[in-house]
């Protein structure tokens, strides 16, 4: 099995970041979780530009996107990624506290791979994040192009 890969977490709420990191790290899922605080930073990271111009090459294995973020929101980031041939194959999980049907419909229309409503109940939140991370970073077969680049 290949080694665990990076996760990009786009989340503006520091407490949510702390909780998510706690959940992921408790389960020893990844080597590195890159945390960005808004959609603009997320796009900078994905395109390796701006503050991330000199980052280590390679796409994250999974992107966790909060919907409500300042500047550029999660739906816009998703829209950009799914309209870019290079980024389209990166799995995206919309991670949000919203139960609004419009958000869910919009996310699936834009091509999200999964949509998770952050539960208030922390244990189910951890379970959800863990399941997703395991699924997308360990079990999920990456498309050939990404797999080749990873080698």
């Amino acid at each position: 099995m290949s080694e665990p890969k990076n996760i990009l977490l786009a989340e503006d709420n520091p407490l949510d970041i702390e909780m998510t990191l706690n959940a992921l790290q408790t389960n020893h899922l990844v080597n590195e979780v890159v945390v960005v605080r808004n959609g603009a930073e997320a796009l900078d990271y994905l395109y390796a530009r701006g503050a991330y111009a000199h980052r280590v090459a390679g796409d994250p294995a999974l992107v966790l996107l909060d919907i409500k973020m300042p500047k550029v929101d999660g739906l816009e980031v998703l829209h950009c990624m799914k309209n870019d041939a290079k980024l389209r194959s990166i799995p995206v999980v919309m991670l949000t506290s919203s139960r609004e049907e419009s958000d869910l419909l919009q996310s699936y229309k834009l091509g999200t791979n999964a949509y998770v409503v952050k539960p208030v109940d922390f244990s189910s939140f951890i379970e959800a994040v863990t399941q997703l991370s395991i699924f997308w970073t360990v079990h999920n077969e990456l498309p050939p192009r990404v797999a080749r680049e990873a080698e």
Partner: protein
Amino acid sequence: MFRGSPRLARMFPQAPPIRRKLMVMLLVTCGAVVMVTCLSYFIYEFWTFRRTTVSQLDLLGEVIANNSTAALAFDSADDAQQILAALAADRHIVAGGLYTAQGALFARYPAALAEGMIPAAPDTDGRHFVGGGLAIFQPVMRNGKRLGTLYLRSDLGAMYERLKLFAGTGALVVLASLALAFFVSRALQRQISEPILALAETARAVSDRHDYSVRAVRQSADEIGQLTDAFNHMLGRIQQLNQELEQRVLERTAELRAANQELEAFSYSVSHDLRAPLRHIGGFAVMLEQHAGRSLDDKGRRYVAVIQDSATRMGQLIDDLLTFSRLGRSEMRREPVKLNELVEEIRQSLQAEINGRHITWRVAALPHVSGDAALLRQVFANLLANAVKYTRQRAEARIELGADGRDAGETVIFVRDNGAGFDMKYADKLFGVFQRLHHSDEFEGTGVGLATVRRIVQRHGGRVWAEAKLQEGATFFVALPSATARASSAPSKNS
């Protein structure tokens, strides 16, 4: 025929009847006038002619009688015969005779007249109408002395011939006048019928196409012209009112939409922003437990547990409240819903709550209703979940579903349980938001379930109510307007 408009076709069964009516009226009037004129003329002519005939016969009788005095005086039958032969000049004289003063037949005309065609003895003097003819007995006098009697009989044929001719002429006149009246009235009735037909045509356009912009053309200044004006004025008013109404509907819709969007934005931010701190309270309580669980005593662990439970409960409340508020705004669909299938699905999904308890279900055959399947599912899910919840303390739980007799355009479905029930004193509070009749340490809940039930049923045009006895059970009734009742009361769009 008025195609496409059954209502107008009913109003005017055969079109255009007004033309035919006017025509028939004119023809009947004209025909009657001509007939009466002809008939009165005919009667007048009949009497005049009859009188003329009588006076001519009288005159002839007098002349012949005067001429016959000598023949009678000298008892010369040959002379008398010759005098009577002069009657041949009038072809309507069918018989003639001379009687002596003693009453014996002296001479006859025509000479070969059969016996019996002439009276054997003279009757009283004067005129006698006999079978289709007129007869006179004229005294033959000389110097005040009666010499005998003259008998003349006319067959009135001249009169009948003339009357026949007259009747023929009369009939021709009637026919000719009717023909003339037909052509004249056909031209004249247009003046009346055409503006009316034009008006009817316009009314049909309005009724068929709901086009209030058409106008009838005013063709005359008379009452029909006034009617046309009034009709046009009315159309204008309807058109104006329609436009105003549409404008008002548009404005109201826009206002409603704006208000709805505001509400939407509000509930969106509630669901995002209110939930985030709650998630942190719950989440960090768990992290605290993980981090310091071992160093906490029982009291400390209980506090952490209470924090977690309260956060979960608050989250549940927010969810329920948002669902409830969305109910009033979401679009509602109408489709046939098979209640038995719905109830069966809900019962399957309640297995976790039932959790091995023994519940006796009695589900009767439920009718199909018309409504939004997802919303009605919520109604019965809430009612059944309540029934399961409030029978929890029963060793022998019974839940019954059935339909009350369909009456007054309603379908009534009830859910009955033998659970905790409630005091009917508080029945009016039962369906209010956040209203609870039990303590949450006895039966958990947010107080939104029955409020949701009521709102959904009300949106379907129905009503809900409940009957209960404390510790003996409760029955919840859902009354939905039945499909047939609604179909007949709803105005259809195309009529």
